[in-house]
């Protein structure tokens, strides 16, 4: 099929980074179960074959992630003894202060903390209700949780994406969230991915599985943070399944002020009449590459993907999204906005597939960017592949500067230029902010945006 051949265009090679060394790095004796071990082996084989993306690979054309990883991180395990299994309980005490910094005052949430890719029971506050399971994925595999065995590895494709293959082979831990049938989960699950990178680099490989059963409602809020000035890298793969009539709101906040490089792959599989909202906020980090894929596998589905990247310095913020309409009568809407200052770089690539049987699809996409400096840039590319003939699809992208006439208008009323700019940038971001449903999260993200815009 055409939509599959898309991936085959990626020229992925394996010799740039020794595949064996990456696998060895985090060859974990965790999550042991015959079925999962087979999956890990499948990941290892795939990774040996495809490796990390070549720098000219189409999917990474503007983000030379492999080169940056080679340059800034040592991927040879013999030279540095880091890795999730080196983290023992004693480290928890050392990260307390740091994790406190990412704790959000007034946000009532279940909290799940991972330190260097390993679940930290002492820093986490898990729900006690029988409506929901929130636990370490490694523990869940160890316990042979049937839901995990049924879903893990069923949605993220190991055969085409080297990072997913690596992750599948070598994940150290992650979260398993299971919202049970008809359960309305009262507060968000707040996931903190903490790196303790004070003197030594950290590489973590995190795997998440989220299962929202029929009629259940779940909110997940994930966030990255770190201590220290060493370079660090995280390879995250999240698979989510939202069953019939289920609701999932997934918030991702990427504002790690440390030297984080990251690859975050998220694939959400939606059953009929399910609702998914994703919110991706990228405010900081050295390199953020998000691959977000939604498979709309049923009728009456509604999906919204919101994104805001507000970056400066030398941050690279790369969002690759895919919406795959597989069945008729579903709706998707995507809006990503960017404000780029300093020498930052933005990349937006939005694919929409409408398969032949997916008649009466409504699919919309927009990407809007404001460039604040000569050194900042953005590459934006919509890709619509539509095989059905009775659909409504649209896309649009704009890149420009702030409207000088509008700034003059505000100035002419007594508002200084800096305030005028901040007001307009904040207004630009408002369209995304206003769509955040959870009040506590909205207030918090809004405060971060105001801080960044000095407003």
């Amino acid at each position, binding site marked *: 099929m055409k939509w599959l051949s898309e991936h085959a265009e990626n020229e992925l090679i394996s010799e740039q980074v020794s595949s064996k060394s990456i696998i060895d790095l985090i060859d974990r004796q965790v999550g042991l179960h015959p079925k999962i071990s087979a999956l890990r082996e499948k990941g290892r084989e795939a990774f040996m074959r495809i490796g990390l993306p070549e720098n000219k690979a189409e999917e990474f054309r503007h983000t030379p992630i492999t080169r940056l990883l080679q340059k800034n991180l040592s991927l040879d395990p013999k030279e540095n003894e880091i890795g999730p299994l080196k983290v023992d309980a004693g480290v928890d005490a050392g990260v307390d202060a740091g994790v406190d910094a990412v704790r959000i005052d007034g946000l009532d949430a279940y909290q799940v903390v991972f330190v260097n890719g390993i679940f930290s029971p002492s820093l986490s506050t898990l729900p006690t209700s029988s409506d929901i399971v929130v636990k370490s994925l490694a523990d869940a595999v160890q316990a042979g949780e049937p839901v995990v065995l049924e879903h893990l590895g069923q949605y993220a494709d190991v055969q085409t994406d080297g990072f997913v293959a690596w992750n599948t082979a070598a994940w150290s831990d992650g979260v398993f969230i299971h919202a049970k049938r008809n359960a309305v989960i009262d507060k968000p699950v707040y996931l903190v991915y903490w790196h303790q990178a004070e003197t030594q680099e950290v590489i973590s490989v995190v795997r998440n599985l989220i299962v929202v059963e029929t009629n259940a409602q779940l909110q997940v809020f994930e966030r990255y943070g770190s201590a220290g000035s060493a370079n660090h890298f995280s390879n995250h793969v999240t698979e989510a399944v939202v069953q019939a009539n289920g609701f999932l709101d997934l918030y991702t906040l990427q504002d790690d002020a440390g030297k984080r490089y990251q690859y975050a792959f998220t694939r959400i599989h939606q059953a009929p009449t399910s609702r998914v909202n994703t919110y991706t906020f990228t405010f900081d980090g050295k390199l953020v590459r998000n691959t977000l894929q939604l498979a709309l596998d049923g009728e009456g589905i509604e999906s919204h993907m919101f994104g805001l990247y507000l970056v400066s310095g030398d941050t690279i913020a790369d969002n690759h999204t895919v919406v795959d309409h597989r069945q008729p009568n579903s709706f998707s809407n995507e809006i990503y906005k960017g404000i780029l200052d300093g020498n930052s770089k933005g990349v937006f690539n939005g694919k929409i597939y409408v398969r032949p049987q997916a008649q009466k699809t409504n699919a919309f996409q927009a990407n809007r960017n404001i460039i604040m400096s000569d050194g900042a840039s953005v590459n934006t590319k919509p890709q619509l592949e539509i095989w059905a003939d009775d659909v409504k699809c649209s896309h649009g992208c704009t890149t420009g500067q702030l*409207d*000088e*006439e*509008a700034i*003059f*208008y*505000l*100035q*002419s*009323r*007594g*508002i*200084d*230029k800096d*305030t005028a700019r901040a*007001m*307009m940038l*904040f*207004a*630009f971001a*408002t*369209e995304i902010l206003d769509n955040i449903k959870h009040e506590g999260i909205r207030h918090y993200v809004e405060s971060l945006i105001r801080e960044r815009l000095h407003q």
Partner: protein
Amino acid sequence: MLSIKNLQARIGDKQILNGINLEVKAGEVHAIMGPNGSGKSTLASVLAGREDYEVTAGEVEFRGKDLLEMAPEERAREGVFLAFQYPVEIPGVSTINFMKTALNKVLQARGQQTLDAVSFLKVMKEKMKLVDIDQSLLNRSLNEGFSGGEKKRNEIFQMAMLEPRLAILDETDSGLDIDALKVVANGVNKLRSSSNATIVVTHYQRLLDYIVPDYVHVLYKGKIVKSGKKDLALELEAKGYDWIKDEVAV
């Protein structure tokens, strides 16, 4: 209050103002009339500080200070207000938030007490009556999707809020039907006092039936070629601008 001497300005390579002289005193209303392209809007823009224009000669004193030295926001804080010919639409910024920010900046600069949300709303409600503007309009994004009349009323509402010493109305009558024009003119008249002044820039005499000027100046090719009392406006309405052009040519 305002003293303009030999003001010359250009945009790019195009010279537009060729030596304007004008004195405006507190309590006065001056109308600037003239055919299209004569430089009326340029004069208004230069006084408000639009950066597109380069002042090549002359000086402008406002209450004893050099106006041309000031940034646009400083001029506003000193009490200069430009009602735009084409008010700008700013999505995502509500008129209320915008006005609260602006008013507090102006009050602060004047050494006056800034307003909290409650007192701001009280002031706002009073001023809304002046131009018969509805609060639902002010809750919306600034000028976004407003009709022409709503935009102009919003300009006068902002003027009422900021209480300028010198208001410059740039073609405020353009695109208004007679009812909207009366509402706008009525608002302007209520704001007139012995301590402020108004410059009305217009192509047509119609607006001057409602905002009665003390002086009328005719601008042509970047110069004031004729000045008079309000009768001059009526004469222009009756005869058109051609006789002025002929007179200048002689």
